[in-house]
């Protein structure tokens, strides 16, 4: 096997406002949807989804790199946001 060949790994990070935070954007979307007649709507929250492609074939390494981006790289703010990593 040729060890020079590296395949990329794509991970997704969903970042959402923490439940205790008033999500003004989510609230604005929610009010808009409800006023447009979507009566069953209970709540909207707006976050972001970031796709990160890493130059590695090691899943664990990729995951820990993304964890570092979140915690050390400022990808999220733990005071107001929470995250989930998707593979």
């Amino acid at each position, binding site marked *: 096997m040729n060890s020079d060949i590296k395949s990329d790994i794509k991970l997704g990070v969903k970042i959402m406002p923490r439940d205790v935070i008033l999500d*003004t954007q989510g609230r*604005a*979307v929610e009010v808009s949807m409800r006023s*447009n007649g979507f009566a069953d709507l209970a709540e909207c929250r*707006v976050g972001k989804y970031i796709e990160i492609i890493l130059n590695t074939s090691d899943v664990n390494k990729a995951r820990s790199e993304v964890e570092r981006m979140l915690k050390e790289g400022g990808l999220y703010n733990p005071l107001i946001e929470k995250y989930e990593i998707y593979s």
Partner: protein
Amino acid sequence: MSFKVGIIRFLGTNCDADVKKWMTLKSHRAVYLWFENQFNVNDYDMLIIPGGFSHGDYLRCGALAAHTPVMKSVKEFATKGKPILGICNGFQILCEAGLLPGVLLKNDLQKFKDEWAMLKVIQNRSPFLQGTKKDQVIKLAIAHGEGKYFAETETLNKLVDNNQIWLTYENNPNGSVLNIAGITNENKNVCGLMPHPERALFEWMGSTDGMYFL
């Protein structure tokens, strides 16, 4: 001629008072209309959707405003062929509402631009700029973060073929395709532009070219 003008206000509209002052200077009678209410389209001769940051620019600029009750009446007003002008965020709202084609994206280099812009009048058949000559250059202020006009090639071809390109930038400040600063719908009664005519009314403002508008 004096018109009755409806100025539409959303949460976060902030150029409404300037637009009202502008209309008063032009001897029109202007009243404010609130986004939560529909209105009788026969009560007004003309509508203006002023700039600002409607509904916090949340979701996409103009997206939430485009789906409010007042827009049902605005669409009816448009169908009747009556004049509607959208300025800056108002232009974005008209695009999101489907009354104008295309979309306004984040400026090139991600920069908010507030500066003077020289604009060429490509066609003066819209109801709003009949006081100008074709190819005349006017000076208006721009102030936007999302003003880069974009549309698919097919739409752009249509805009050109139907003379829907209204104003173009002489020095494209934001990366708009075909240097587009303002467009009209096919009927020429719905018009949108990113620059602010209401900010160019007196010499001390730096330009009086806003007075060319209806």
